[in-house]
């Protein structure tokens, strides 16, 4: 009898312990919002059928590098605007770039409401393959004419470049959709040593420049890496990297014949140049391992230049980032490939509670000047002031360090060319940018997106090998004469040929379907 009682009590104790865990979970203070969401779902759906727009809340997810203080204020302003125009409120959900991949994946795999989301960032084809993005063609013709018009006025190739199996799952933001390549240097030193920028036509012309700097400014590093290495970005001036860079198209054409970038003579040539620079002391000794950004290095007066990709207005942008006046020399013409276009795009997620309304919001991002400026720069007279009709600057007493809303990510939110021009930039910047986009060399494979699913294991293995060699080679830390063949041998062993073959197969099928 006693024993039974004890048993019952102990059992009760355990049940209690577990019950506490579960009840604690259930009592989350989120009930309110949850009920709200359910309500909205129903409303949204009935809204579609009746034609009358019922209020909805749209969730807009995008990456940021540090959340601005006044985000809620801006969101309230946005809501006033969207409420009036499409009877919807918008919830802005910024996610740090570092946490982006993980949180985005998790948010998309659940039933969480996500309406508009930034897609691309290297995972476009995977996201489409997983069925996480809605097909947009129907919505675009129905509610998103503004988006199509804005993009097609540049070149219909841009919107078409996002097609996967003939369907659009995302629209690129209007920004620099191509890139040209060259070097950015400190203007004061260029002038001080009378460096003839017009004479710089290729990487090999830089030796003389670097020598001048090295000889006259012994504490300064002539050139620092951009991205993970000196050549990291610059190689794209020679090749369309067709996604992840294993298997590229030299010259953005090569008659659609995919080759291994690491075996091309151009690549070997570039490595020799960088190695020469390293031996001559033009590159920091710790270049392969340093984690300091090129901007901080220039800002602190330690570095003179970096080799990178460019666009119109690059000089003022880099001057702002480095705090020193910079001058750029472009020596590789602008080119565009699928990767340039699909790096930043907007999609409607599968989890969207009301895709039609989401498309209407997206349409606003491509057509509505006031909405764009609110997203890009915040509230007028608080976060910026107009100094002329379309040129703006910080209000008095506000600067980059204490502004409550200073995303400076106009390239992300829809149509950048509708936004104001920041003081110091060329007033004609958006026209120049449009011309730049129109005139860029279009890759022959523009519109081809590689689906890496079939060769996932090979990609992982090859990436491992690449991590071992690439940075050391591209900073000139090791000798390419002996290490490049070794690198290539390891790549072969890891299965790079299989990736290239698969890519060629997909590319051929893509080209055939296009005809």
């Amino acid at each position, binding site marked *: 009898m006693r024993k039974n009682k004890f048993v019952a009590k102990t059992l009760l104790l355990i049940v209690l312990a577990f019950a506490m865990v579960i009840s604690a979970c259930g009592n989350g203070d989120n009930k309110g919002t*949850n009920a709200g969401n359910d309500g909205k779902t129903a409303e949204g759906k009935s809204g579609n059928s009746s034609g009358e727009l019922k209020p909805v809340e749209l969730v807009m997810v995008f990456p940021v590098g540090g959340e601005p203080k006044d985000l809620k204020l801006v969101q309230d302003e946005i809501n006033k605007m969207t409420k009036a125009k499409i009877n919807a409120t918008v919830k802005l959900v910024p996610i740090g770039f570092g946490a982006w991949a*993980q949180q985005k994946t998790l948010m998309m795999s659940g039933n969480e409401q996500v309406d508009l989301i930034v897609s691309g960032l290297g995972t476009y084809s995977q996201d489409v393959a997983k069925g996480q993005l809605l097909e947009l063609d129907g919505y675009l013709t129905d509610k998103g004419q503004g988006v199509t018009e804005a993009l097609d006025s540049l070149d219909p190739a841009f919107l078409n470049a996002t097609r996967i199996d003939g369907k659009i799952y995302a629209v690129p933001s209007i920004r620099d959709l191509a890139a040209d390549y060259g070097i950015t240097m400190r203007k004061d030193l260029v002038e001080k040593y009378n460096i003839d920028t017009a004479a710089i036509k290729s990487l090999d012309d830089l030796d003389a420049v670097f020598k001048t700097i090295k000889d006259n400014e012994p504490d300064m590093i002539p050139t620092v890496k951009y991205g993970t290495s000196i050549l990291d970005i610059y190689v794209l001036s020679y090749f369309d990297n067709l996604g992840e860079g294993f298997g590229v198209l030299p010259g953005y054409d090569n008659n659609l014949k995919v080759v291994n970038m690491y075996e091309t003579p151009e690549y070997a040539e570039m490595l020799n140049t960088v190695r020469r620079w390293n031996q001559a002391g033009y590159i920091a000794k710790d270049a392969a391992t340093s984690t300091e950004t090129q901007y901080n290095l220039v800002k602190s007066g330690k570095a003179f230049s970096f080799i990178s990709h460019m666009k119109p207005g690059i000089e003022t942008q880099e001057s702002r980032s480095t705090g020193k006046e910079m001058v750029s020399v472009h020596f590789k013409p602008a080119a565009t490939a699928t990767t340039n276009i699909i790096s930043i795009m907007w999609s409607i997620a599968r989890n969207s509670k009301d895709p039609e309304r989401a498309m209407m919001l997206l349409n606003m991002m491509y057509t509505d000047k006031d909405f764009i400026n609110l997203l890009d720069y915040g509230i007028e007279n608080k976060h910026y002031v107009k100094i002329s009709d379309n040129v703006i600057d910080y209000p008095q007493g506000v600067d980059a360090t204490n502004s409550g809303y200073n995303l400076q*990510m106009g*390239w992300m939110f829809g149509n950048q060319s509708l936004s104001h021009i920041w003081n110091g930039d060329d007033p004609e910047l958006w026209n120049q940018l449009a011309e730049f986009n129109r005139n860029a060399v279009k890759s022959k494979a523009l519109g081809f997106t590689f689906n890496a699913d079939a060769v996932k294991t090979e990609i992982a293995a090859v990436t491992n090998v690449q991590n071992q060699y690439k940075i050391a080679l591209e900073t000139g830390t090791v000798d390419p004469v002996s290490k490049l063949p070794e690198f290539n041998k390891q790549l072969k062993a890891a299965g790079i040929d299989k990736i290239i073959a698969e890519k060629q197969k997909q590319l051929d099928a893509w080209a055939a379907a296009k005809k």
Partner: protein
Amino acid sequence: MQASGKLYQWIINIVMLVFTFFCIMPFWLLFSASLTDDMELVRSGYAFFPDKISFSAYHYLWNSSSDIIRAYSITVLTTIIGTTLGLTLTAMVAYPLSRLEMPFRNTLAFYVFFTMLFNGGLVPTYLLYTNYFDLKNTMLALIIPGLLMNGFFIILMRTFFASSIPTAIIESAYIDGAREWKIFYRIVLPLSTPVLATVGLFYTILYWNDWFNGLIYLTDSHYYSLQNLLNRILLDVQFLQSSTQAGSRNADIGANIPLAPMRMAMAAIGVIPLLIAYPFFQKYFVKGLTIGAVKG
């Protein structure tokens, strides 16, 4: 004999001193980096004794303090609540499992043990907590998932209860008229302070250092804990460094990210409370583990 013993002592002391030095060195480097002028740090790198001492990083933290102070209080709050709850629940599960009379004792013990070896994986866990329990963007997301109960701690405590609390005490208390509850909190718990302190310290450290739950369950910066905030900043920096996607605009993103000395200063203020707390816990920590081992 005496001389060789002394020599032996000397060697041990020197080895320990060197070892201690290597333990303290990284912290010292961190502190000194947080006190270095930011541009100086870029120019000449980390140094144990910076040429130019600057408190600008701490100034910056103090001035933009609302975020940091909120993150700090979130960390303190989750640590206190989490440790208390975690310790209570762990003891309440471990104690019945330590009693031989407990029915299904082995089955339940295996159930606990099983969670140590297998879990559902990240996506199912996330779906459970966000879709069914609605923990997303709440304080509870920092307290409940993965931290509140830990199979290892339960087994640690059960072993202690089973081996260090003589059954005779429980029986005599029972004869004197105490019921299970009373036996548990008047007899067993007071006798178990070593293991409670040990597991309590484990929980404190776990909660204090936790950033992962914040990373996956929070999108609202209102609930960021200090470690999560720091981790996000570091991840962003890493992203800026490593991302090589064509046309990725690393350039424009970096503006909002604090410079290295600020990050070091944040890490420094994050680690101080644990450094202070540790010596106080330590005596229990050692005792807790040995008592379990010796008397068992």
